[in-house]
């Protein structure tokens, strides 16, 4: 198996509160790992640690063999290969959709404006938002914003995509359009780590589902076992509440 991310004994505490408690796991190329669990369980913190938006208190994270927690590692070089999609989209409101997408490729990957724009058009076509390219983010619906946020990350050709509750801030009728884009990505063998409350999505798309509770991977299995026959009391309790 080709290990993309290796997480070793990862701990994170905020003050006295231990949010991540010695998590060790690997994420392989092509994995779609869904993280579920109660709020406060550490899902988002774990995800945000993977590109150092949260600095681990202790432990190591290797990305493609590089220890990214080492202060000598240039984190910007790592982050351009790790796409991230946020709950609240975080599009840049002062830039058009096209500018949102081309900003980083032009400034970081040093693509020419033409190259970046033609690539952006291709991606916008794929998610059916070509006609929005010259509008500003606040003219888009939540679902459209999130689709733009996803393709904005894809502009960088990331090796892995992190999703932090990508559908939690959406009106119910818009959840589907975002999940469809994510399913497409999974089909193309994109490595994905997804914090989600969409159990249907986890069951259908993930190859691994992990239950994060009290800062630990309390249970992990393939979706079939995970949802049908979990061998864990806390998970059973959790699933009985959300399913």
């Amino acid at each position, binding site marked *: 198996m080709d290990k993309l991310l290796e997480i070793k004994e990862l701990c994170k505490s905020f003050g006295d509160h231990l949010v991540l408690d010695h998590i060790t796991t690997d994420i392989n190329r092509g994995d779609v790992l869904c993280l579920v669990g109660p709020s406060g369980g550490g899902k988002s913190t774990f995800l945000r640690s993977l590109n150092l938006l949260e600095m681990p208190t202790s432990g190591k994270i290797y990305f493609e063999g590089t220890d990214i927690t080492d202060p000598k590692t240039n984190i910007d070089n790592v*982050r351009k290969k790790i796409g991230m999609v*946020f709950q*609240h989209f975080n599009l840049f*409101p*002062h830039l058009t959709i096209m500018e949102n997408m081309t*900003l980083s490729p032009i*400034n970081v990957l040093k693509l020419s404006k033409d190259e970046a724009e033609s690539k952006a058009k291709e991606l916008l076509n794929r998610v059916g938002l070509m006609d929005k390219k010259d509008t500003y983010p606040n003219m888009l619906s939540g679902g459209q914003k999130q689709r733009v946020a996803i393709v904005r990350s894809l502009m960088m050709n990331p090796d892995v995509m992190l999703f932090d509750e990508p559908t939690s801030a959406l009106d119910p009728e818009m959840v589907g359009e975002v999940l469809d884009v994510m399913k497409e990505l999974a089909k193309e063998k994109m490595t994905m780590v997804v914090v989600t409350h969409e159990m249907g999505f986890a069951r259908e798309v993930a190859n691994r589902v992990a239950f994060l509770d009290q800062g630990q991977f309390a249970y992990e299995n393939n979706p079939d076992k995970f949802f049908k026959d979990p061998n864990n009391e806390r998970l059973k309790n959790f699933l009985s509440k959300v399913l």
Partner: protein
Amino acid sequence: MENIIKALQLNLIKDNRYIYLIDGLKNTMIITLFATIVGIVLGLLISLIRTTYDNTNGLKNSNAILRVLIKFANAICQLYITIIRGTPVVIQLMILFFCIFTSRNASGVLIAIIGFGLNSSAYVAEIFRSGLMSIDQGQMEAGRSLGLSYLDTMRLIIVPQAFKVVLPSLCNEFIVLIKETSVAGYVAVQDLTKGGDIIRSRTYDAWTPLLIVAGVYLLLTCIFSAFVKKLEVSLRKNERTN
């Protein structure tokens, strides 16, 4: 009516006294313009140092040298703001003029530019800082997770948005600055106010030159406000919903 025309004739036309006002206006505008530039550049720099220090917990995740550097810079900036905001601008000008630049060839206008620029920068720094702090943390996270460096994210994403937020207070600050330059006469600069003073001392008429000078200041601030209003509208184009 006849009296007014007579007064204007005496205060403006006779002996080409209007020249005092024109020259004064020129100096006032030069001082304001360049002090504004100094204020914005220095103020932005100070606010970036202060915001970076606050937001990153003193660059907690960087190496030791950078941590010491930012801590030192932040302390300097805080001290600077405290002193500049805590003392009258006239005193600051006079210290520059009589204590620091004591050379006889030091130009009063240059000293006024430096003095008002430094003074304004302390206020501008706090205005910018409030703007930078008002931008959602998610914007920085989005920029950084796209691989942009901290400085690029600031430059391309945070500062442009913050600028729009602070434009009204920034405008207010510069209206204050235009008027504040009227104390430049203290350091031998012949600005608009001083020009009016000279005419008064020649004609013994207080009303006419003072009212004219007041009118010119009012005109200046109105023109400036109108210009900023235009700028605000054009910056807000992305907020319209259709």
